[in-house]
């Protein structure tokens, strides 16, 4: 890699890092203060939902939801079979 390319690379990296700092440090926190986003975050927390879950085991609330479904099955087992 030539010196010029290397300097250009570091320049691009610095710009990208600045963009990340502005976006995550200023824009997103400001967006989070909006009532709509606040309500959404509170709603997800209240229900034990991990919106970024990759697998069912990532949800804190999964055990409770599953237990409720089992309870419904116990109330009327024939309804599901």
């Amino acid at each position: 890699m030539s010196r010029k390319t290397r300097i250009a690379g570091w320049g691009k990296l610095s710009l990208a890092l600045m963009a990340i700092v502005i976006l995550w440090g200023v824009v997103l926190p400001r967006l989070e203060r909006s009532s709509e986003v606040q309500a959404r975050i509170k709603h997800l927390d209240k229900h034990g939902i991990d919106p970024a879950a990759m697998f069912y085991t990532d949800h804190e609330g999964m055990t409770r939801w599953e237990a409720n479904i089992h309870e419904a099955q116990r109330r009327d087992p024939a309804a599901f079979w």
Partner: protein
Amino acid sequence: MSDSEASDPLEVEKPQTAGIPLLGSEDWWAIWIGGALLGLCLLAVVLAGVSADGSRSNPLKPWLTKPGSWSSNPLDSLFVEGKPNAIPGLFGVLVVSTVAFGIGAVAMGKKFTSFAVGFCFVFLLAVLAYILAGQNVIKSYNLEYAMWALAMGLLVSNTIGTPDWVKPAARTEFFIKTGLVLLGAEVLFNRLLTLGVPGIFVAWVVTPIVLVTTFWFGQKILRIDSPSLNMVISADMSVCGVSAAIATAAACKAKKEELSLAIGMSLSFTVVMMVLMPVAIKAMGISQVLGGAWMGGTIDATGAVAAAGSMLGEEALQVAATVKMIQNILIGVVAFFVAVFWVVYIEREKDGPKPKVSEIWKRFPKFILGFIVASILFSWLYGAVEGGPALVDAVIDGSTKTLRGWFFCLAFVSIGLETNFKELAKYFKGGKPLILYVVGQSFNLCLTLFMAWLMFEKVFPQAAATLGK
């Protein structure tokens, strides 16, 4: 980066131990390392004993953690008020991962020190990816860590270039395969019948039909050049997003760029579907149970399904999350059959004879066996052993789930470090991947809605009524 480097498939590397039975490939090392980690975590929970109320705790939990969520100060993700700070837990993950993969690296002919030095850099990028993903707004819209891990790697490789001293540690395939062996412990077949017959039909009958039909459409109608790209997009869209994409990509030896492309598309569509589907369901006057089942069967990402379900109500949330959970369990079966199908049909020479069993075994991605054995073993522990659910939950929640997340995160950082933006662009050729996704998802939406309606409104209306009480 050369073209050949950029398009390396998720395939095995010949290690120093090649030729030695059960040590001869990266796949086997993924099994041994994943298996050892599962065994150690299980042992730690067993030795910690049972508390008076029958619950179990995992003594490893404080030592294996990831950054949490934050609002305006990223340091809040490491120092959560009222909780122990995350630094010892991050250090624990770093030590465990360095030792585990370092052993594998030595077996693959690398020097431990050169691997460990590079690995610290890859790990640092993974920490940054988790911190970016933990910002509350990002997290609430299902923009998973996989995306940011990929972005972190791409940022380095496409600006200053991946330093030579980092390259020995960017071991995408190894991280993915070991992570999948750990994921096997979370694939519990006991949970398959949670929603009875309706759940099976919505999650286990529709999904394979959509998967096979979409793959056929991609091969025969769109004539996508790469069958592995076609398969990863089809599985990602029909099964359960990123986790299914990772498992099938490894099973069909897809290229790294193909996995990145499939995940990027899936996450983009997931955000849209997560917002629009609850609105559409309300507008159409569909019941919560039917709406929940529809979203559970169609929205790719597990997290987004629950978030969207909760927008309709508690019943919809429970049904949506449970349908998705049943779909999650399908991953093992899909990965196994994709691996067999690839070895038997796709990799076969055109008009060549059907490969012999020995040839199939030779080419079969062995780590899938580790994934399936872990799944069977933990399903047995969960269902057949007294106190099994508490034991398995403690092992998964306190340790293996966290390690699995880290290994996938490290894999996506590695993909980014080995990928050139220009390489990604060529996979969009003619917009075919996008057409495949849109057509497949449209079919998925129609068939899942029909099946959920048939099951919950016509054949088992009592089930919907019971769930609604």
